């Protein structure tokens, strides 16, 4: 498996979020703090979902919040947030909802760096054991150890 190297500040463990919008803002927080993205980017991620539905669910229990590079990316970046309590997304089409515990917030500058990041994320979530392992962590330290 290709390793994702992530500094600790980009790996967060949270008990819960108020709702999916809150979850996206939390997952974007480290990227915002490091000025890799602007607040516009955060709002674009939320608006896109409102318009298009929760297309960011890329695997069972895994969400990939992202918007387009021109919507406010300063620098390429990636953050991983695990919520102990599931975050729910409404699905207007079918009337039911789906849930996610793992939020991988993505900020890409161009298509090449974007593909590289997607490949890394892909290798991370391909293995469902890894998803379970991340989901079952009980603290930020435990989560950090997975990526150490």
């Amino acid at each position, binding site marked *: 498996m290709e390793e994702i190297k992530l500094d600790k500040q980009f790996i967060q463990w949270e008990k819960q979020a108020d709702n999916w919008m809150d979850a996206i803002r939390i997952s974007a927080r480290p990227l915002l703090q490091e000025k890799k993205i602007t607040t516009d980017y955060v709002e674009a991620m939320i608006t896109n979902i409102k318009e298009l539905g929760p297309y960011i669910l890329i695997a*069972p229990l895994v969400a990939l919040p992202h918007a387009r590079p021109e919507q406010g990316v300063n620098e390429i970046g990636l953050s991983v947030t695990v919520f102990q309590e599931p975050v729910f997304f409404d699905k207007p089409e079918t009337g039911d909802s789906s849930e996610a515990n793992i939020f991988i917030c993505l900020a890409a500058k161009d298509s090449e760096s*974007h593909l590289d990041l997607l490949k890394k994320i892909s290798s991370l979530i391909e293995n469902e054991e890894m998803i379970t392992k991340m989901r079952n962590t009980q603290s930020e330290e435990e989560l950090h150890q997975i990526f150490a």
Partner: protein
Amino acid sequence: MKILAVCGMGFGSSLMLKMTADRVIQKKGIQAEVEATDIGTAESVQADLILTNNEFASQLEGGRSAVKAIMNMASEDEVAKAIDEFLEETNK
């Protein structure tokens, strides 16, 4: 054959799905082209098979292309199964 990977913006999960499908095709030795696109343009693109999430699958069903829903965009197993199913159905 032509496979279309579809997501909301044609930029995130559809690209991930395209990468997975490309690997599957290569391993299986199938002659196919995979394109990633957003839901808005998906219906105007000619394709044999559309791979997408559950929600968009129900929106795109009933068109000219066969549609298969994928839960894990990174799972080669799941994408391989969808392509196998499609090939079986079309070769009947």
